[in-house]
């Protein structure tokens, strides 16, 4: 699936039967190329308009934003919005909270889901099929159904209004278990048989031989967890009312309600909340696409 980008797009570029229109073939080819640019340039621009607006507005002096008619290119760029954001909000705290949630989520996903994936793929024991079926069946349950009881449950445990409430749902997931199981099923069994014959324990075999091979799947898993935990809004919104435990998404949403017109400030907070994922995406685009493809194909 990581090969998605590099595979040639065969049908479009294959030659037409040369007997018919030998002369027009090169010409048609060039025209066809320009044709697709005519479609793709506006689409790509349209898709990036919100980003341009976000960055530009975050750098625009407040006095220039509410003017009429509006000007979209600021006369000068300023970091005032960011300065005000850091001075008047707890954005760094929220950012730190989000980093804690995502890092713990990713680490826990990597450890617990690969252990479980290996167990379901390779071990034979009582209760394995039944518990796997139950896990797969939970895909059907919409999260909305779980909000109220989970809230009550977390309140009883005493983690409502703490960062713990945001962390616990990201410790493991059906997607993670399923992904790792599929990956381990695809590995040849001989790899571990040799180690087991040499007297290595199951866990030792897993840890020394199998786990290091799982890197591509673990990257997919990490990106899935990062995207979900970093961007989650609904659950923190329900479970966390204490501003000290806000994630960055919850923080900027609350901020938006409180500072309706402070646009350079709001856009600066938007940039802070979004930029980490944008940077990750640009540098690990293939892995992101592989993750999206897998999350689509699994259904």
């Amino acid at each position, binding site marked *: 699936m990581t090969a998605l980008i590099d595979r040639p797009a065969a049908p479009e570029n294959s030659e037409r039967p040369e007997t018919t229109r030998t002369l027009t073939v090169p010409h048609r080819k060039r025209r066809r190329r320009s044709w697709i640019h005519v479609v793709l340039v506006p689409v790509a621009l349209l898709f990036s308009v919100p980003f341009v607006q976000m960055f530009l507005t975050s750098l625009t002096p407040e006095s220039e934003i509410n003017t009429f008619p509006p000007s979209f290119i600021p006369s000068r760029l300023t970091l005032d919005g960011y300065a005000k954001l850091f001075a008047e909000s707890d954005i760094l705290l929220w950012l730190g909270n989000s980093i804690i949630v995502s890092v713990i989520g990713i680490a826990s996903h990597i450890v617990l889901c690969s252990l*479980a994936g290996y*167990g379901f793929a390779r071990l034979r*024991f009582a209760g394995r099929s039944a518990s796997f079926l*139950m896990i797969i069946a939970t895909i059907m349950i919409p999260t909305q159904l779980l909000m109220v009881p989970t*809230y009550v449950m977390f309140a009883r445990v005493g983690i409502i209004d703490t960062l713990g409430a945001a962390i616990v749902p990201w410790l493991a997931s059906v997607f993670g278990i399923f992904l790792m199981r599929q990956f381990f099923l695809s590995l040849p069994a001989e790899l571990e048989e040799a180690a087991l014959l040499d007297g290595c324990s199951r866990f030792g075999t897993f840890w020394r031989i199998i786990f290091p091979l799982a890197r591509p799947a673990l990257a997919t898993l990490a990106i899935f967890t990062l995207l979900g935990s970093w961007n989650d809004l609904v659950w923190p919104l329900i479970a966390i009312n204490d501003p000290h435990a806000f994630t960055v*998404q919850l923080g900027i949403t609350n901020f*938006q309600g409180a500072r309706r017109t402070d646009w350079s400030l709001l856009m600066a907070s938007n940039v802070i909340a979004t930029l980490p994922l944008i940077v990750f995406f640009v540098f690990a685009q293939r892995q992101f696409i592989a993750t999206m493809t897998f999350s689509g194909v699994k259904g």
Partner: protein
Amino acid sequence: MTSAAAGRARSIRARRLRDAATGWGFIGPATIIVLGLTIFPAIWAFLLSLQKWDGFSAPEWVGGANYAAMVADADLGEAVVHTLLYTAMFVPASVLLGLGLAVALNRRVVLIGVYRTLIFLPFVVSAAATGILTTYLFNPQFGLVNSALRVLGLPQQGWLEDPSQAMLVIAIMSVWGQAALTTVIYLAALQDIPAELAEAAKVDGANRWQTFWRVIFPQLAPVTVFVTIWQSIQAIQLFDVVYTTTRGGPLGATETIVYYLWNAAFRELEFGYASAVAYGLFAVTLVITIVVVVQQRRSAEGVTP
């Protein structure tokens, strides 16, 4: 003999036990977390749906009264209508756009990597950020969208402040954020279609348009069914972008089922009623999925007996 057999039986049992201990050592933690956060609360939610409870006072058993109340709830009915309206805009738009973009991006031309990055990038933008962006872009006074309309000489619109347009704006921005998903899925499927199919069609004299709709598109049918179901489920569960843009307004025009559910649960503290609504939503989702899948199986069998 007998003692040897007993010994063997004992050793088999001991090995089974050891295997189970090892197995559960591997799967136990993740399994307990996943099931503990899904099946357990799902069962609890069903019990809650049969009660009247605000989270503090003693719960009162009401049987099916919550479900009966749902049928007569006019506000919920309106939320259903708003949700369907959104679904009717979002699902076809995101599926068709995904298909179109996948076809457009499935070739080697200069800058293709740049196009892909720009089109996929919105996928990583959170609902919170989308909300702030949307209220800014579609601001009736100084938003970019109205400015563009002014330049083109078209009338100004109220967008998020207009009850008849607010849902459209939310759908547009959702498509912006979600088009990458359908595009990527279609792109993967397109690349799995053998090139010989299109070549054979060409040899038979089909033009590009015919080749696509008569040869390529039918090959994509399972993917189309999948993304349609997937996006429909997403659409029916719309909450976060509504919360970050309109909070259900103006005049309740963007109040969706899940927004209504959230409000009932965490504003009105009607835990029992909210759970009943959630179960209603679950049932509808399940029925839609099953119907579409069965229908698709049947039509697929019809094509290839």
